[in-house]
């Protein structure tokens, strides 16, 4: 085969490859995503049933607290040394109980707040007296490892006001979340970065 003819064929194949890549990208780039419009991306009106166009803001991982079964893998499977999953406390759902099922072991012998009675392995739950008999519980995120032990306790004995969420100041947003791949209850899903939390108890801070 002469060099000229080979170059000609090569040009055709190269053109075809370029067109193919462009075609794939165009087809995928135009595709609408499956999330319903929440009006936050600014590209469409709120409450319209239209689907948001892909692009602009990306997608991030989040835990659906309704599906989470507190298996403990969030603490062990995150690619970060200390998991990006942290316990979140919905104050509006909390009963402010003295004996808190998330704070203390279920077999706590006395009503002391001594370390031996605490459920959290890293003592990340802070307890503050408000007024008799109510206490406020706060999560120290620097200490929280996302093990979900308190979440389990709170779900069992309390209101379920403690729950796990991926904290996006920590999450590196992997292409495939290592925890999501290991999650036994399918609680992880992608959510739009403009609305990156699946909060319990209604609006963000209520």
């Amino acid at each position, binding site marked *: 085969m002469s060099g000229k003819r080979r170059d000609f064929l090569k040009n055709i194949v190269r053109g075809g490859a370029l067109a193919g890549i462009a075609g794939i990208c165009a087809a995928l780039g135009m595709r609408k995503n499956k999330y319903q419009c929440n009006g936050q991306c600014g590209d469409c009106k709120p409450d319209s049933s239209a689907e948001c166009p892909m692009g602009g803001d990306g997608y991030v991982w989040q835990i659906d607290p309704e599906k989470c079964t507190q298996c403990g893998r969030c603490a062990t499977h995150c690619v970060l040394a200390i998991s990006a999953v942290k316990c979140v406390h919905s104050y509006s759902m909390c009963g402010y109980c003295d004996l808190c099922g998330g704070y203390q072991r279920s077999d706590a012998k006395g009503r002391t707040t001594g370390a031996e009675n605490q459920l959290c392995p890293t003592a990340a739950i802070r307890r503050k007296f408000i007024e008799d008999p109510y206490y406020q519980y706060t999560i120290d995120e620097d200490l929280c490892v996302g093990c979900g032990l308190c979440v389990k306790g709170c779900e069992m004995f309390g209101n379920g006001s403690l729950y796990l969420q991926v904290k996006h100041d920590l999450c590196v947003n992997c292409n495939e979340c290592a925890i999501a791949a290991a999650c*036994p209850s399918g609680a992880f899903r992608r959510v739009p970065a403009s609305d990156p939390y699946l909060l319990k108890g209604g609006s963000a801070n209520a």
Partner: protein
Amino acid sequence: MRKIFMTAKTQRHKGGAFSFLRVFASLRSITLLLWFGFSVSAQAEFRFPMPEFASGYEHPLVVMPAPSTAMVGWDVVVLLSTLTLAAIFVLKRRNRREIFLLTLFSLIYFGFVRNGCICSVGSVQNVAAGLFDSSVGVPVTVLIFFAAPLIFALLFGRVFCAAVCPLGAIQEMVAIKPVKVPPAVEKVLSIVPVIYLGLAMVSVATGSGFLICRYDPFVGFFRMGASFPMLLVGGLLLLLGVFVARPYCRFLCPYGVLLNWASKLSRRHATITPSECIQCNLCADSCPYNAILEPTSEKAPEARGTGARRLGKLMLLVPVLIVIGTGVGGLLKDPLSRMHPTVALAERIAGEELGRYSTTTIDSETFRASDTPNEKLFEQAVEIKSDFAVDGRWFGAFIGLVIGFKLIAVSILRKRTGYEPDKGTCYSCGRCFKYCPVKEEKT
């Protein structure tokens, strides 16, 4: 939620502690617990409604930091500018030092600043997921990261590998004492990335996850933390990389397969010599990647006709290889399907039911707690397995096709009058440039 509090207010309890003890007490009796649960759900959503505080207490706000998206736009800008710079350094300036500095920059930016995660190598899976499943959207950034290096390879060769890919960059840094791998070994091992690519595609097509991301050996270093096996594999690869330059790029990288094909068609490609090769042989040992092709000898190596006959035979062999690949791929159904979590869970549950295991796993416990009947899980697993049977055949056929084409490529002898880079495997790293004594002609 507010509404619930209002309705519950009429039945205020006298303190969390008392109710909590009541729960503990009720735990002793399942019936009591059931009664308690029902009564709660009947009156309100919460067991212990939020108290009304006499002291005027107001609860603190929960901080929910938003994800940082500021870098995403920059990533595309940095990718396109580093690719352009790499092409200029390789083709116009022919300067190894500049290429190396750009590689260092890419290692720092895409590696350590961006934690190795927006990466062209992994983007193949997102694009594949979009192609296999019409409900999956692919962000524009990911599409650009997939397409730009391939388009640059079609035009200028693998300049992405040379100076942009952080995985290549980290290996480039440790390639201190490269030894020559026998070309035959190199050729045989070059099928491994194709198999890896095929497996990754099967994994995406069946919804088993992103293998390439899961087994990315160097991302643990970029993030400064990973599981021990991951760091061990990455460390061993880097150690190997001291002697065998770029082991991941050459013998594993699935995206490199696509770049290899694209680069073979490249419009302009890095050349060893800026002008005419004088066959001085000085560059021959400069390439640590076996990517320099020697000039062919003057004498015709074989009689006319032998080559054509061999080519004909190999062309007949290609469909045979595809058929064999399809058969083997179909047999891989069972081992392959175990990478899908549902199939793995179904096998675990079945094994536990048969008493094969003495313990349960988190997965099997969670499944049992979900009250899904076993039969439903088994049905799903069987369905997924049949997907694997189909995808496994495609995978086998693909591998057969690639092996066939590789054999044909090896058998075709092209005349070369000088030392040339192998356009497919050359990473355009520029090491050979300074070995060439020929100076650029002034035009």
